[in-house]
């Protein structure tokens, strides 16, 4: 693994950013963003995760294969989540059958 100048400083900066983002999450948690509450919380979390993966886990300068692995995993995770959620969100679309138990619309997820 190639060494990089000022790696310690990079780690320090990333760490400070991570802590700041944690503070931000907790602070945002007390603010009513309406339906954006969860997406914003998850976006901050995703940012933190990306920073950790890219820098602490060295993916940024890692082999392409690592990127491919990460991408594949996220793709299949998305398949699992999206196809299953499709069921819950479209189960009650009209076909004339008796409506199922779930009345919540997709928008309510983010309330």
């Amino acid at each position: 693994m190639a060494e990089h100048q000022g790696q310690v400083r990079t780690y320090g900066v990333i760490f400070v950013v991570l802590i700041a983002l944690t503070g931000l999450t907790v602070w945002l948690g007390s603010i009513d963003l309406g339906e954006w509450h969860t997406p914003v919380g998850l976006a901050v979390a995703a940012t933190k995760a990306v920073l950790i993966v890219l820098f602490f886990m060295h993916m940024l300068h890692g082999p392409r294969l690592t990127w491919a692995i990460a991408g594949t995993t996220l793709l299949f995770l998305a398949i699992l989540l999206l196809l299953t959620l499709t069921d819950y969100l479209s189960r009650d679309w009209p076909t004339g059958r008796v409506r199922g138990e779930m009345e919540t619309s997709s928008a309510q997820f983010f309330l």
Partner: protein
Amino acid sequence: MSTVIAEPSSRPAEPASKPVNYLNVQFGVRSWLLTTDHKRIAILYLISITVMFFLGSLAIVPVRLQLLKPDNDLLDADTYNKMFTMHGVVMVFFFIIPGIPAVLGNFLLPMMLGAKDLAFPKLNLLSWYVYLLGGAFSLYAMIAGGVDTGWTFYTPYSTRSSHTNVIPVGLGAFTAGFSSILTGLNFLVTTHKMRAPGLTWFRLPLFVWAMYATSIIILLGTPVVAVTILMLAIERIFQVGVFDPALGGDPLLFQHLFWFYSHPAVYIMILPAMGVVTEIVPCFSRKNIYGYKFIAFSSLAIALLGFLVWGHHMFVSGQSVYLGMIFSILSFLVAVPSAIKVFNWTATLYKGSVSFETPMLFAFGFIGLFTIGGLTGMFLATLGTDVHLHDTYFVIAHFHFIMVGGVVMAYMGGLHFWWPKMTGRMYSEFWGRIAAMLIFIGFILTFLPQFVVGHLGMPRRYFQYAPEFQVHNVMSTAGASILGVGYFLPLIYLIGSLAYGPKASSNPWKATGLEWQTPSPPPTENFPVTPVVTREPYRYSEEVPVGY
């Protein structure tokens, strides 16, 4: 003729004195139980999987006998339910899923790659112990009174209603899952990092491609079913709702999570089988495989698309009908790469030099039965017809054509094909052919009538049934007894060959793979000198390929 695809592989002359190989390098129980040699681990797996196969077969004997008469009372309902559940659990989790990868894959993958071992030999040994642990949990459950949920563990029956050993069996499946994760991980890393010099991706044998695709599925799917079983166990133990509607849950979520793994698991079973057949067919046609890249990429396509079709198990479950539509069309798409493979195998025979040794007979059996199994899948992927055929014996027949007619046929073919390499002995060709034909005939007789009785409306998991279904069930039971003889024969003549079989040469079939370039049985680190590969696989002839 002998084709050498590895240039400097100076073929080791077989000296008169006993050559050192992986079998005789060390003796004693310790040397086996603590081995990290992938070939020895493969043998350990072979033994344990064979035991599991016969246990699973034994469990179905009383079931088939019970079904001889419509209102038979040979078994009571509970015993019947426990028997078919054990048959399903043992066969699925402890035989078919690990079968080809853990035995043939373990033995062959490093050799086909020109490597000395798998990337993580200790992990490989660990996977066998984890497998044994899982098996122990399941056997405990069997002895302690059995389990009656069916291998699918559907909630809320499994969490609320069943009074049997759901947890130990769930734990067994959970544990066995981690065993296959370790194997899959090992295969992926080995394929990426341990290939011999010159062995580029498109020079890999197609068995390796198949194992690679299988391993991807194992890695992505198995953990999901593991955590699902965990949730099921927690709901059952604490009576806190995850899936049970009375506790606020949704039973369909269990089905989604379960089939997200268990449908791709079908491809975990069939892809290695396809890989085996892809090795056998060109060898006994003495010709290059037709459409190498199409077969290679169709394996990957199956791995990807296989994850997109799980909902076709749920067409009448109350899932969204719109999602049903999506799953239906995706299910048709996954049929295309399978069709590509069948056509390519057939085309490989064209203008070949076809011979009919035992492995090739099994391969023919595989192609025929798999084709029927695949085509009957069309009826189940089509929404309108699945509404009728769902959960009937039609489904039973369909997946047995794939899993038994397909996977077990290929497993037997592969075992016979590489038996000389694994043991250094030849088995009786005569008995081999008899067994192959008995299995084929027995299989057809067992499962063909089940398509009919399923269409007539006989639901699965019925211990007594309407009288008009009797003829078909009697035929099935008759076929199953032939099938049983067919499976028992190899046990005898293969074991017999260890003592009485003639010594096998390093390449008895005159095949091209790297594994045939080393003595039979191979030495501990597989190759005396690391081979260098300079050309694509399946080059039986020096001539340049000609078009149609």
